[in-house]
């Protein structure tokens, strides 16, 4: 299945590290967007998720806020 997984993170956020590790453990390719160094990406994340907390995961347009393991598993179909 083709899917595009983007994750909006900051380098210092532990939940971001956990999500990234979880994706790696499950062999999921993802694009990591560091919102601390990219103001436009930060705005994009706020628009998409309607909030300002990280991490935010975008799986083919489905937005998941925080390290919500079950929602991530559902969205990825793993």
């Amino acid at each position, binding site marked *: 299945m083709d899917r595009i997984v983007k994750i909006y993170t*900051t*380098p*210092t*956020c*532990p*939940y*971001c*590290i*956990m999500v990234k590790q979880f994706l790696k453990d499950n062999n999921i390719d993802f694009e990591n967007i560091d*919102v*601390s*160094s990219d*103001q436009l990406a*930060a705005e994009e*994340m*706020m628009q998409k998720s*309607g*909030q*300002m*907390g*990280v991490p935010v995961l975008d799986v083919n347009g489905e937005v998941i*806020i925080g*390290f919500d*393991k079950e929602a991530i598993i559902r969205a990825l179909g793993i």
Partner: protein
Amino acid sequence: MIYDLIIIGAGPAGITASVYAARKKIDFLVISKDIGGQAALSGDVENYTGYQFITGSDLALKFQEHMNSFGIKVNMPERTRGLRLEGNNLIRIITDRDSYLSRSVIIATGKRPHRLDVEGEEAFRNKGVTYCATCDGPIFKTKRVAVIGGGNSGLDAALQMLKISPMVYIINATSQLTGDAVMIERLKQSPNVEIWNNSQVRRVYGDVFVKGIEVEREGKLYPIDVEGVFVEIGLIPNSEFADILTRNEQEEIIVDCYNKTNLEGIFAAGDVTNVPEKQIIVACGEGAKACLSASRYLSTHKF
């Protein structure tokens, strides 16, 4: 299946306990909502022996690596909801997804941030209101922010934000800041900070996101335009599920110097307990002690 030990929580205390348990080859399980606990959310750590400087998230990663080197199993994210005593000195642990039986338990669930309890706080949670400056701070780059609280965690958040934010307001309830002198000194050298002593936040307002806060000082209300509100007014223990244990007025689990609670086989360690100093290094030491006590308990009791 009956475990010999279940460790609840994987912050500094729980992780250290798990390393000791693995080395003692105890049959055990770790249940936690996250890994690293509050340590992972700390900014700069300069008082953990062996590291002159390390960030909280890096230190938490080191802890995690140490734990992983033993292949320790962590059920995560999983929240513990209750504890019950069963026959034959067994303890039942009820979580949001399962229920377990164990001969002994170490509670190392730490603390979580205290809420302001004002209008708008919940509505704007993650829409400008945050409880983790380390995680969300960078998103407020170029935005004016308020840090609520003048203790160490408040000053830590303020110092972090001063580097990237045009204006940082510190709203402090007491007559002067209570954090470490070193930090206060660093703050005073910054041009973009304004300290409001004897002040209380009464309301958080905005539209989709936060636009400002209303602050009361000496009986008068002042609006302050900010887009970020960092709440750093102290912590409350994650001890609600442990209502069968004796706790103090702050709801901390009371332990003796062997980390024993009032119930046989149940031990507690770290910030969730009444042990006076809440420090990463103290929590680690307490976790080690708790595991050694649990191990002694397991070897001297019949089940």
